Each structure stands twice: as C-alpha cells, then as structure tokens.
C-alpha cells in the first residue's frame, strides 16, 4: 500500500533550499512586481495622460490586458473545473496548479479595471454603501457590472482553490510537524482549519468542492461575457455584435490552456514531478489546447465570413480590423492562436518541453494580439471620421504590462514554494484505486 505515497509532493515545499534558479526567478519576478508598483504610483501621480490612449482609442492597454488576463484565468479555471466535475484521472496532476494559475491571473487582471477609472482612488464609489453624500451607484451602468463581476470572480476563484487545498494543508501540517518544524506546522495547521480526515468530513468536503467547482463554471462564462457585453452595448460597429461574448470566451481558451500546458511542462522538469504529471497528462492537455485552437479557428472564420452578410458599416469595420492598420495583430493572432497549436497533435512535439512551452506561451501571446486587435483595431472604423493618430502603447503602459506579468510569475513561484503543486489527496485516492484488486 505504499503505492500511494505522495511524499515527493509534500516534501517539495518543506525543502530548505530550492536552488539558485528558483531564487533567480523569484528575484526577477519580484523586480518586475516592484516595477508594477512604480507604474501604479506614476499613474496615480500623473494621471492617464501617461498612456497613449486618446479619442477614439479610450480603451487601450488597460482593457486589452484585463481581458487577456481574465481569458487566461478562465481557461485555467475551466480546465480545473471540468477535471473536478468529470472525476477524471488527469485532475490529480494538474487541477491544483491550474487553479493557482487562475487565481494569479485573476489578481493580475483585477488591477487594470481599477487603474483605468481615471480617478482610481474613487473606485469604491461603485460599492453600494450608505455614503454621507446620500448618493448611490448607478446600477444601470456597465461600470457597476464590472465591479460585481470582477469582485465575484476573484472571490470564487479563491474559494475553489482553497476548498481543494484544505486537506492537503493538513498533510503539510503533519509532515512539517513530523520533521520537527513546529512553527511551519502551526502556520499550515491554522489554514488547514483543524482538518483531521474524518470520513464524514470528507463526504461533505467532496460535495462542497464539486459545488464550488460547479459555481466557477457559470462564473467563467459570465466574467468574460460581461466584459464582452460592455463592448457589445456600445454603438461601435465592430463591437456592437451578438457574437462578441462567444468570441471572447472561445478565444480566451487557448491562452489559458497554453499557459497551463507550459506550467505543467516546467513543473515536471523543475520539481521532478514526472510521476505525478506523466506523458498521458501532457497528451491530454496538449490535445485540449489544440482542440480549443481549432474552435478559435471556427470563430475567426465565422466572424470574417458573416461580416460579408452584414450591413455596410459592420462590413467596413470588420474589413478595417482585418486588413487595416492593425492587420498584423489580427493575422498574427490567427497564426499563433489557431495555426501554431495544431503542431501539438504531433506526439513528438507535445511531449518535449522545449516545444510545448513555447507553443503554449505563443498561444497566450496570440490571444493578447487578438485583444489588441479587438480593442484598438475595432475602433478604426467608427461612425465619425478619425482625425487623431493611431493608438500605440506608451512606455508606462508597457511597464504596467511587464509588472503584471511579474506579479503573476511571483504569485505562482510563491505557490510552488509553500503549497503542494499537485492535489495529494486526489493522487492517493486514484493510486489506491489502481492498487485495489
């Protein structure tokens, strides 16, 4: 019965030394996170004049990056949710860090909508609280949808991650105590809430875990859909489309799956967890990414073809987006999101980290290009002639993006350092079932 020992997983966070590579990664991502702090302070000090946004391009990097990060978070959560609800063998390996990636991505995303308010320090005005001014939020405004959508997304993603983590934190508590590290055991024990593995507790825990997972599912659709609805409720021809929510949700998938794929490949190599994240896991993950990319291909083709059946304004707006000044972004996105991931159907490509990691990250970059093409390219043909210059991000905007990438990386590194990256109780459960005659 020693078949289901998960010691290598639980011992990883208890290691005293993670090696110089890990330290270097933490230092690099911490430096980028500091850069984020600098960019935020600069923005608060100087205002949005620092950014390249101008009429008609009022939504620049803030919305592009927000929608992009939410897409990554959604696909990562969707993946984890489907694994939990389907009780699939793969979930034990990857659902935990897919959840962690989703949480980090949501945190990175949640910064942007606050910063793009113009006067970010007044963001709490969207909260319905009894103010001395006797004013209330305007609930018919999309800004208020954003507040509820983002706040709920952050909280529910966290609850999903934490609910699954409770029993594993108890394992960490007991392992740390067994190694005589009582201070650490107390910290793990506090967050494990006194979990003692009672089978009655397990039964209710599993029900709650599946319930929270089921709640994440509509959250994913609604979070992306609310953003897309905010575009769709404008009168901009390229945005005022019923298909926009579907398009944003569907194109979000390859980015998140690509990031999870890259993380899985890196963790396998970096932490030596090849036994817990095996070739079959990588195969399934890679095939899912490729299939999501195919679905995106369909969405792209549909948008282009149906545009010819639309009225003139919509047709011209679509043509401007696909063949105008930002055509490179549009076709770059199509190449990186739809075409490149198809290589993952080849076994030789998806099993090798040196191919899988770049392809996964390229899919994420491709979706970023797609968001840029939607936010900036969608405004090329408006109802009024455009007189100003095209939108180009300024250095402070790039700094902000680099900063959130650093924050995302830092959060994942911290998770890897302190929390088991693989769901241990799932692994034990499956391996004990495999052992049974």
């Amino acid at each position, binding site marked *: 019965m020693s078949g289901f020992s998960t010691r290598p997983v639980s011992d990883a966070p208890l290691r005293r030394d993670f090696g110089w590579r890990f330290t270097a990664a933490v230092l690099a991502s911490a430096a980028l996170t500091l850069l984020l702090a600098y960019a935020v302070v600069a923005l608060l000090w100087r205002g949005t004049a620092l950014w390249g946004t101008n009429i008609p391009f009022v939504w620049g990097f803030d919305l592009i990056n927000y929608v992009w990060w939410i897409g990554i978070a959604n696909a990562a959560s969707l993946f984890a949710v489907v694994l939990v609800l389907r009780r699939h063998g793969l979930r034990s390996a990857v659902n935990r860090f897919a959840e962690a990636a989703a949480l980090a991505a949501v945190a990175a995303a949640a910064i942007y909508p606050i910063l793009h308010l113009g006067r970010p320090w007044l963001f709490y005005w969207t909260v319905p609280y009894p103010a001395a001014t006797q004013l209330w939020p305007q609930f018919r405004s999309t800004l208020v949808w954003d507040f509820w959508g983002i706040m709920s997304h952050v909280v529910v993603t966290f609850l999903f991650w934490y609910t699954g983590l409770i029993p594993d934190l108890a394992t960490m508590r007991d392992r740390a105590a067994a190694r005589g590290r009582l201070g650490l055991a107390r910290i793990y024990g506090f967050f494990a809430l006194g979990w003692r593995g009672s089978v009655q507790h397990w039964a*209710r825990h599993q*029900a709650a875990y599946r*319930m929270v997972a089921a*709640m994440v599912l509509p959250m994913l659709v*609604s979070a992306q859909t609310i953003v897309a609805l905010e575009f769709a409720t404008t009168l901009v021809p390229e945005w005022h489309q019923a298909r926009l929510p579907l398009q944003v949700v569907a194109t979000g998938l390859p980015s998140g799956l690509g990031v999870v794929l890259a993380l899985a490949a890196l963790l396998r190599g970096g932490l030596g967890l090849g036994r817990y994240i095996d070739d079959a896991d990588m195969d399934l993950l890679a095939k899912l990414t490729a299939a999501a990319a195919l679905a995106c291909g369909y969405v792209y083709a549909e948008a282009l073809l149906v545009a010819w059946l639309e009225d003139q304004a919509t047709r011209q707006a679509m043509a401007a987006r696909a063949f105008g000044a930002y055509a490179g972004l549009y076709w770059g996105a199509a190449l990186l999101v739809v075409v490149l991931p198809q290589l993952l159907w080849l076994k030789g490509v998806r099993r090798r980290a040196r191919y899988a990691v770049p392809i996964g990250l390229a899919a994420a970059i491709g979706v970023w290009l797609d968001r840029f093409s939607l936010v900036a390219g969608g405004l090329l043909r408006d109802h009024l002639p455009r007189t100003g210059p095209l939108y180009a991000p300024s250095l402070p905007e790039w700094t902000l993006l680099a900063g959130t990438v650093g924050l995302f990386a830092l959060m994942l590194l911290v998770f890897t350092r302190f929390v088991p990256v693989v769901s241990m109780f799932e692994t034990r459960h499956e391996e004990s079932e495999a052992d049974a005659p």
Partner: protein
Amino acid sequence: MTTHLLAEFEAAEPMVAALRAARAAGWRKLDAHAPFPVPEAAKLLGAHESPVGWIAIAAGLAGAALAYGTQWWLSVHAWPINVGGRPLHALPAFLPATTIVGILWAAAGALLGMLALNRLPRLHHPVFAASQFHRASEDRFFLSLELDGPDFDAAAAHRLLAPHRPLSVAALGG
C-alpha cells in the same frame, strides 16, 4: 481515564470492515479518519452530502434576491435618476450583478456550510494526541471508538478490533 481507542489500519478495507462490525455490535460514538474520501465508511456513519448542496442553493438564492432587491430599491426608490426616460426598474441591466452575486453566495455557502456541518475550524481534537495520527493525512486509516458504558469498554473494543488486525491500538484521553 481512557475515553477513546484509536485503531490504525494499513488500508481502507479492514478499516471499513471494523467499522461495520462496530456498528453491528451497537457502538454508536464512532469516527473514521482516512487520507482520502471513503464514501462507504461515510455512509456507515450516516454522513450525508446533500445538506451542503441545499445550503449552497439557499445561500445562492438569498444572495441573488439581495442583489436584485438592492439594485431595485436603490434605483427606483432611494436614488431615482431619469436617463432619457429609460425605465428605472431595468431588469436586463440588473441581471448581470444578480446572477453573479448569487453565484458568489452559493460558492461561499458551499464552503462555509461544509465547515459548519463538519464543526470546523477546530484546531484541537483528542485524536491528534495519538502518536501515529499524523499519518491519517498521508497513508494510514484510523477508527476511533468512544468508550461509553460497561458494554462498550476497552476490553470490548479490543475484542472487536482483533479480527481486523489493526497495526496499532492507541488509548486516548485522561
């Protein structure tokens, strides 16, 4: 004085068999600890999953009702703003926040309901005193019997456990 006996098993099957025997012999104050869910044992102990779902659904509906009610009351009564003659009570505009807050409450209700039904957080419990109990979160299975009256004393417990060959039996309490 010993209040509990804690028997350690190497696998889930003997633990479940011992639990079944204890139930048959009339032991009522029992619990079992495992490193992963053992639905069979939970059923023997009479734990139901469904209350968690009902709590979550009730919390979700309450949250959605609160969200919709708040939006309606504030927009129609407390702070009516005429925007181009559009209706103050705007169902489509209220729906996104209503659904999403309902979902939020349902998810929080599932976690908090689970914790409440499990009587957690409880950072200390008699079973933690057993020296081997830390392996309940790793690879061992435990059956805990609360000694309760003359027919359910330590000797009876040992007689009950012996055929199932526990790795160890620890006395707790006192």
